[in-house]
């Protein structure tokens, strides 16, 4: 069987047009930049009815030209994807093959966007996101990877097993047909094979799940820790603030990579250090929610007591199942702390993921703490805080129900940026081979594997590198869009 080309039969028609458009777009953008300095702005002239109109001028023309060319490039890219999905790999090469595998993702994305845009006036800040182009692009990129990750985990998109090695496929270039494929097996390695003859496409899809699984939750935990410590530090000030700030600065003064090396090496894991950290860090959400609900409802004991019992019970059970594994919190050579019996332990985090999760939370929490503390310092001088104090509200009510909601704008924006940063950190861990097992399909590890043969077979490292780039870019754009829209309020 012939190896696939990148765009197949579709490309013979579209490729030349696409290339011309790309070159044209680059030239138009360049001329736009040059003309913005050189060309005079369009002269104003007076219309017969007395209104003023500015002529477009060469600079304006270049702006228009580049807008049309850009729309053209976007349109052709869409044609590649849509027609590619219809024709599949036989008709439209690798792009078609990938696009056809991603059909469920396309459907989910289109459905999500259609529903969101239809009801955007009723959806608050989330709906406003769909007023900004940048925000929509960012949200689209992010949701694309979320869907790829989730559906990939459900074995919908992957073409081969991400761990199995097929003979004769080592370092093969993208689009190579699988040697001796049997019925029901996918016929190609769409994005080639890596240095252990595994399918790069399937590994990238599976790797997306590792990120989607860890990054948002790790960021959420970091926010819980940062908020729970940052609010009182900013609100009370004094010795409490000094001590916590000192510890936060201490952690921030470490180079991140040194910290990772200290926390994540197998020897440290053997002592159980990540476990202890997990026991401490995972406790913060319980404190957060308990204080949050208690400060709101303590005047109505009939609501508060059952609510707290349910919430604390659920959270505490989740905490126990997360932290304990094989019936013990910590089980090393020297220390054994018994935990939840294995029979009740419904959810186990694999040790590799736990270590990575904990260290990422640990690195992120001090920065969140500083942001929250700064916001709390600013907001506590406002009139509505003074009003609440005069009403006789408790300090925790003021912190969690007056200050926190008013700090949500910057916090939401930072949350998006921080997920991106967490993704980068996860990649860094993988790049240095720390934490996750060496055969793990996450992007950092795959880049690390691929970089050894980078100058001969770059495809194995480029695919995860571009994926990571697009996800983080999407998160940054999303944060930008959110910031823009929340400032408009």
């Amino acid at each position, binding site marked *: 069987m012939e190896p696939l080309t990148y765009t197949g039969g579709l490309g013979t028609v579209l490729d030349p047009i696409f290339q011309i458009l790309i070159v044209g777009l680059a030239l138009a953008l360049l001329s736009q930049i040059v003309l913005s300095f050189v060309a005079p702005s369009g002269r104003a002239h007076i219309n017969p009815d007395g209104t003023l109109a500015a002529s477009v001028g060469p600079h304006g023309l270049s702006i228009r030209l580049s807008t049309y060319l850009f729309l053209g490039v976007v349109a052709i890219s869409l044609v590649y994807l849509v027609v590619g999905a219809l024709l599949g790999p036989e008709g439209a090469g690798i792009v078609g093959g990938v696009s056809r595998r991603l059909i469920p993702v396309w459907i989910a994305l289109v459905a999500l966007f259609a529903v969101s845009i239809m009801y955007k006036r009723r959806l608050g800040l989330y709906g406003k996101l769909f007023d900004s182009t940048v925000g929509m692009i960012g949200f689209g990129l992010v949701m694309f990877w979320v869907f790829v990750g989730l559906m990939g985990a459900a074995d919908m998109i992957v073409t081969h097993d991400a761990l199995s090695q097929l003979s004769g496929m080592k370092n093969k270039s993208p689009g190579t047909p699988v040697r001796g494929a049997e019925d029901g097996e996918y016929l190609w390695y769409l994005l080639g094979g890596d240095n252990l003859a595994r399918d790069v496409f399937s590994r990238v899809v599976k790797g997306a799940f590792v990120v989607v699984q860890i990054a948002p939750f790790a960021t959420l935990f970091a926010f819980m820790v940062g908020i729970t410590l940052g609010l009182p530090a900013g609100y009370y000030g004094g010795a409490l603030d000094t001590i916590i700030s000192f510890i936060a600065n201490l952690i921030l003064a470490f*180079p991140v990579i040194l910290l990772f090396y200290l926390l994540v090496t197998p020897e440290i894991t053997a002592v159980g250090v990540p476990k202890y950290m997990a026991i401490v860090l995972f406790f913060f959400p319980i404190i957060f929610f308990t204080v949050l609900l208690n400060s709101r409802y303590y005047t109505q004991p009939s609501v508060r007591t059952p609510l707290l019992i349910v919430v604390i019970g659920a959270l505490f059970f989740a905490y126990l199942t997360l932290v304990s594994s094989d019936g013990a919190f910590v089980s090393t050579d020297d220390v054994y702390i018994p935990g939840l019996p294995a029979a009740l332990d419904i959810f186990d985090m694999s040790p590799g993921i736990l270590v990575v999760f904990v260290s990422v939370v640990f690195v992120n929490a001090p920065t969140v703490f500083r942001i929250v503390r700064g916001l709390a310092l600013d907001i506590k001088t406002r009139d509505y805080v003074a009003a609440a104090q005069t009403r006789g509200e408790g300090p925790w009510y003021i912190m969690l129900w007056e200050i926190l909601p008013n700090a949500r704008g910057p916090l939401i924006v930072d949350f998006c940026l921080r997920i991106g940063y967490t993704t980068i950190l996860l990649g860094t861990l993988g790049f240095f081979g720390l934490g996750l097992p060496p055969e793990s399909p996450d992007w950092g590890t795959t880049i690390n594997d691929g970089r050894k043969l980078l100058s001969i077979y770059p495809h194995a490292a480029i695919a995860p590198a571009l994926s990571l780039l697009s996800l983080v870019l999407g998160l940054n754009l999303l944060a930008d869009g959110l910031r823009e829209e929340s400032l408009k309020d």
Partner: protein
Amino acid sequence: MMLFTAICLTFVVFFMTNLYPNLEKLAKNQGNFRMSDEAVNSWLSDRGYTDNTFVKFGRWLGVAQGWETVKEDGTVLRQCRDSDLPEEERVGYCGVLQGYWGYSLQFKDDVSGLVAARLGNTGKLMGIVMLVMVPMALIVGVLAGMREGSGLDRSLSTFSITTTATPEYVSGVLFIAIFSSSAVGLKWFKGSATTAMDDATFANFTLPVLTIALYGMGYIARMTRASMAEVMTAQYIRTARLKGVSFPNIVMKHALRNALIAPFTVIMLQFPWLLNGVVIVETLFNYKGFGWLLVQAAGNNDIDTLLAVSVVSVFVVLLTQLISDIGYVYLNPRIRIS
């Protein structure tokens, strides 16, 4: 305060590297991998590793007496193995305070010389990175910020967002693949900077410098843009425009100086982040500098080297914080005068 922070940090590193599994690995690395537990123990206790952590830390600092073990066969092991000194004078205090940074078991060399040499290499890299990154970032930021919302602003902002979204290990991999792999075939630059340590040329130094500079650049450029855009809406700029001052003159003479105060702080605080980039890039391009040393020392639990490396990096971080505070006051007349 700075000193206290530094001591706390080094103690944390010291504690983590002196945990028993780490020491066991060290012993097996140095002795042989099939050592029995007793052999490991005696190897460690002969070299003072099994003592109390605080005592060991004191020894490293130079406030406690160095260890000395006399074996049954009469050979003497001492912490201070400075061969210039006569045998009798080697006992005593030999820690950081005495200028003795320890001995690297991984590289079989004195740590101070080792770190100094590697720092020199990294200094060269960082110097060129700064020369490339700072002017480029400021130009991009000023150009984007002077006409907020224009086409130029949007294209430059997209560019700077993209660079901040590209960590070094992604851009480095892409650069190597595009510019030096045989698959693409450009082969303009070299994918390894090993030769650049002695003889940095355009071919072997461009990619590492570009990789670090790009990631740091986007952030500085965005800060400069924000500060420039804010200055351009100020009253005195409007006054200048109404007076009829030409646009280039407004940007160069009225706006630029005030717009550069905020980015200065950002540039100084960028140093610690650059340190991260340096570690990644030096590993990726196999350039034997400070970051490479950190990875080697951490990977092999080379305690003395790791401590020296962390002391240096912590001081870099704290020093840049100090400089940025002082520089901010110096640059901003409003704070200086009040």
